[in-house]
């Protein structure tokens, strides 16, 4: 399932850190719109390079990107250094 919330936390030395609970649906909507716009170009590139290039593989990009995004839920990256803090959590 697609992650619905992305939690960010960033802190750098000398700067005020910030934490953010971001509704990921906004990203997915924008990304879907972008992918829709790029689809004709991708199909054209696949057609042009079908015989002698990465044509058939280009058609796999959308399903693969979808599969990666679909499985992002649960990914957590939490780095807590002396002065730096970085947290990215897909919920």
């Amino acid at each position, binding site marked *: 399932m697609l992650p619905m919330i992305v939690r960010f936390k960033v802190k750098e030395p000398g700067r005020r850190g910030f934490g953010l609970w971001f509704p990921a649906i906004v990203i997915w909507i924008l990304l879907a719109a972008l992918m829709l716009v790029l689809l004709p170009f991708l199909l054209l590139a696949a057609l042009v390079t079908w015989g002698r290039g990465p044509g058939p*593989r280009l058609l796999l990009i959308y399903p693969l990107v979808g599969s990666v995004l679909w499985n992002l839920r*649960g*990914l957590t990256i*939490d780095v*807590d250094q*002396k002065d730096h803090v970085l947290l990215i959590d897909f919920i």
Partner: protein
Amino acid sequence: MNEERRKILDMLAQGKITVEEAEKLLAAVGETGPGSGATAATDASGRRSWKYLRIQVEPGPASEDGDRVNIRVPFKLIRAGLKFAAFIPREAHDRVNKAFKEKGMDVDLARITPQDLEEIVSNLDDMTVEVDGKDKVRIFCE
């Protein structure tokens, strides 16, 4: 060897517990130790299927900076990501193979099939890496 097992063996060595008690404790730890958390399910073949690959770095006693790293990667994401290997251009294979060779691994990227990658990922659950140095590093499945 994980910390719990070491503690049990230390207690046995110090005579605080009997051999039978140590056996029971080791069996209990074996069932609930790292890499066998509550998130693991059992598949049809009776093999545990883990949900996440965890990488933890915690400061050891001699650590000066106290850095902590906690990364949790869903196995499904690893599997999905590996499919992108098909997009590595043939021209890059030689460079990747050369880099592998420099690290002492004689690997031919062109010969690695998606089935091989799947096999590697499905066998990651047997892996637990614990490094006790300045920092304590643990890589395990849960």
